[in-house]
Structures are given as C-alpha cells and as structure tokens.
C-alpha cells in the first residue's frame, strides 16, 4: 500500500505579461453579450500524482513546467488516500 499525493500545479502569466489567450477569450465573451466581463487571464493546470514532496514539485515547476521569464506557478496539495 502506498500513499500518493495529488498536486495541482497552476501555471499562469506573470502580472504585466500579455496574455493573448485571455484577451481573445474576453473578446469572445463580450461578443456573446457578456459585457460586464472586465478581464480574462488564462492558466494551465497540471494534476500530478506522485510520491514526491512539495519541494520536488516546486523543482519540477522551476525546471520545466513554468517559464521563469513569463510565468508564475502555484502548487496545491490534494491528499489522496491509500491505493493498493
């Protein structure tokens, strides 16, 4: 029996970096009549099931998942119970 963790890693653009996908989505929502939408920012979510600890997940973000120049990362731990 092992206890795996589930981590949700959220990658988003740093504030100040243009988010073209968010901008297009905003335009699309407004075109549909949702005029009160002020801003849309896009993000990407990775769900990682692993025995690694938080520090190592952070290492993954630094080394591959997030671009250090333009993106931020946020890690959320979701504990998962035993799997056989």
């Amino acid at each position, binding site marked *: 029996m092992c206890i795996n963790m589930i981590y949700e890693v959220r990658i988003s653009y*740093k504030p*100040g*970096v*243009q988010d*073209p*996908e968010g*901008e*297009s989505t905003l335009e699309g929502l407004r075109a549909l009549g949702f005029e009160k939408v002020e801003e849309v920012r896009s993000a990407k979510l990775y769900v990682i099931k692993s025995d690694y600890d938080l520090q190592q997940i952070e290492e993954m973000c630094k*080394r*591959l*998942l997030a*671009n*250090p*120049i*333009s993106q931020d990362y946020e890690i959320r731990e979701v504990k998962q119970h035993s799997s056989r």
Partner: protein
Amino acid sequence: MRDIKFCVLRGPGTNCDIETKVSLEHFRCTAEILHINKLIKGERSLLDYHGLVIPGGFSYGDRVRSGAIMGKTLMKKIGNEIKKFVEEEKPILGICNGFQVLVEAGMLPGFKEEQEVALGTNSSSRFEDRWVYLVNENRGNCIFTRNLKKVLRMPVAHGEGKLILPLGLEEEYLDRLKRNDQIVFRYSYEDGTPALGKYPHNPNGSIFDIAGICDPSGLILGMMPHPERAFHWITYPDWTRKGLKGYGDGYVIFENMVKYVKDNF
C-alpha cells in the same frame, strides 16, 4: 576534400527536417537527419558532426511550451556533449521550433547557462503563417549572415514567437544584445524600416521587432522565419508575377554555415 557532416536533429513532431537537409546538401556536404533518442541512448555522438541544425516543427507536440521538453531534455541528457560541441566552435542553427529549443535550453542569448529569455504566445493569439520582411541588422558578428543583403523576405509559421525579455530588465538586455552585436534579424517593412511593433509586419509582437538573435560568439543563431522555405525563388508566392529566378533569401544562410565549416575544420 574532407567530408563535411551536419546533424539535422529531429524529435517527435519535427517536420522541417527534410527541406533543411536538402538545403545544406546543396552545398556538397552530408546532412544526416538524426533522432534525438539516438543521442540520448548514446548510440550516436553529436561530436561526430561539424555543425548542428535544429529544424522547425512541433517537437513533443509543443506540450508545456514550444521547444521546452526538447530543450530541457537535451541539456539534461547530453548537456556535456553540447558544451563540448560549442567549445569546438562548431556552428548551431535553430529555425523556428529550433530557436525555441535553443532558448529553452539556455543557449540563446547565451549570457548565462540557464534560460534567460522566452518565446511567448504571439500577441495576435494566432498561428501566424505567412511571408514577412526582415532587415538584417548584424554588424558582422554572426557567421550566418555575412554577405547577406539588407532586406529579406521569408515565411514565418509559428504560434509562439514573441521574444520576451525579463520583466524590468528589458532595456538592459536590449543594450547588451546590441552591444554584443547579437541582434540579427528584425521584422520590417519592405524598405527595411523596422516594424516598431506594428502588426502585421511584426507578426508576433516581439520586443524590438526581433526575429533572430545569435550568441555572443556569433556561432549560434536562432531565428523564427524559415530560410529553408525561402531557398529557391520558386517557393515564393509571387515568383511567376515577378519573373524571379535562381535562389531566394534563405540560400546565403546555409551557404555561410557550410562555408564556415569548410574554412575551419
């Protein structure tokens, strides 16, 4: 004459390898299309080649970010081999996805041994696939652009080609690139005036209209436009109307790369 051998490195999803090989071999050398896994498994060594081209395409399906998986994998698995290759002053050309790989690998702009700049999603949020004008701004450092004319026309085809410099350090980085003569191509109008960020002449919103940069030594060039698609005039959309004959604007880049190797190895 000794046999000159180039490596055209492909990964899963690379799709411009054949035309890149053909462009190099036009200058009487051998260009071998090699899969990255052969290097990773140690079946082949990069050091057996005189030059490296990382061609365009969608390596690893552009997952995570364009060029990220291939760039990081290369450095992790054969970083020492690449380092040696660079130390031996062998030329490296990254085209489109190849440029993205070089940036993710931290080989461009080459100030530090880690990733320093990014090629982000085009400002238009679209895949920009069309012919653009480029102005060649290099003052002689880049070995690929010697004797190249001032204004060029080549196609771009990318979704992530906007050069982004570290926030707050943009001016510092630009100054350094200019000082080191690392700026090679800028997006421009037909007369060679830089696009100054104006769409569609600057197709992706790249800072300072940058389309291609080299490292401080001038031996590593990364560019978003495709010289291999501008090798012959017959690939230009208006070649019949304009009665164009002979070779296109990408020709000299490959010619210079092969010539450099022939002169130095």
